[in-house]
């Protein structure tokens, strides 16, 4: 059941974003920003977390989930450390995603070369 939910919810979010891509000429970079900010916003409103609880990876893997985690990190840090938490929580929460992307990408650049499309 959780796999079905993950497939359907994740798929549905992607299909909706495809409409945004095809109908607005928004460049992918902008769409990624919109997704993360939407996740942060929905997280702050307390909507995304219950949704993610229900949908599992279907809500966690898309970048909206990344945004939600960002806000959750800020909120938890504020609860724990007060004012400093506002500055600390975001990077703490996103550390795993960003660090792994940076580290693996840098290592990848040692081994791989850009490939001509055909």
């Amino acid at each position: 059941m959780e796999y079905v939910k993950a497939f359907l919810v994740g798929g549905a979010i992607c299909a909706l974003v495809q409409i945004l891509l095809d109908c607005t000429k928004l460049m992918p970079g902008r769409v990624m920003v919109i997704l993360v900010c939407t996740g942060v916003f929905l997280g702050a409103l307390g909507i995304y977390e219950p949704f993610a609880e229900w949908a599992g990876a279907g809500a966690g893997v898309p970048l909206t989930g990344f945004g939600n985690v960002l806000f959750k990190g800020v909120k938890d840090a504020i609860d724990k450390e007060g004012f400093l938490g506002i500055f600390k929580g975001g990077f703490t929460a996103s550390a795993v995603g960003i660090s792994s992307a940076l580290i693996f990408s840098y290592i990848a650049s040692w081994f791989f070369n850009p490939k001509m499309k055909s």
Partner: protein
Amino acid sequence: MGNDKNVDVSKVVREKDTKTRNENYNQYVNQITPKNSLPKNMIGAFLVGGIICTIGQFFTNYYMSMGADKEAAKSYNTITLVFLSILLTGIGIYQKIAKFGGAGTLVPITGFANSVAAPAVEYKKEGHVFGIGVNIFTIAGPVILYGIFSSWVLGLIYYILKQLDVM
């Protein structure tokens, strides 16, 4: 979007006012430019995005079954997906999936990873510092900036409301 008014090309050629002419021309171009099929693209995005999320669910469950708590399992899942995405980018497969999957490869965290790996590989010839170092965030940088900034703004509001005992 949504302007269904049919713009004839004569309205472009005969129009004297440059601004109106350009508006008419853009509408006319919009009409005559064939579009990719949206339903087909949406199906591609749905399938590919759905499958990536299902794989994410699988890894999360797997790491939990190995004894990780739920939050840790999600983090391990992120690392795994990012790793796989960058590996597939390096060997030239992620791009091929993206051609079919569109938003299905862009929206998941794997799309973020692809956007970091692609410039890292592309700019290696321009050096480690000014090539890879500077360009690695060309696509993903805005995501991090606005993610951090928006969560900071909303965190600040949360902090103030908390001080005021509203929350």
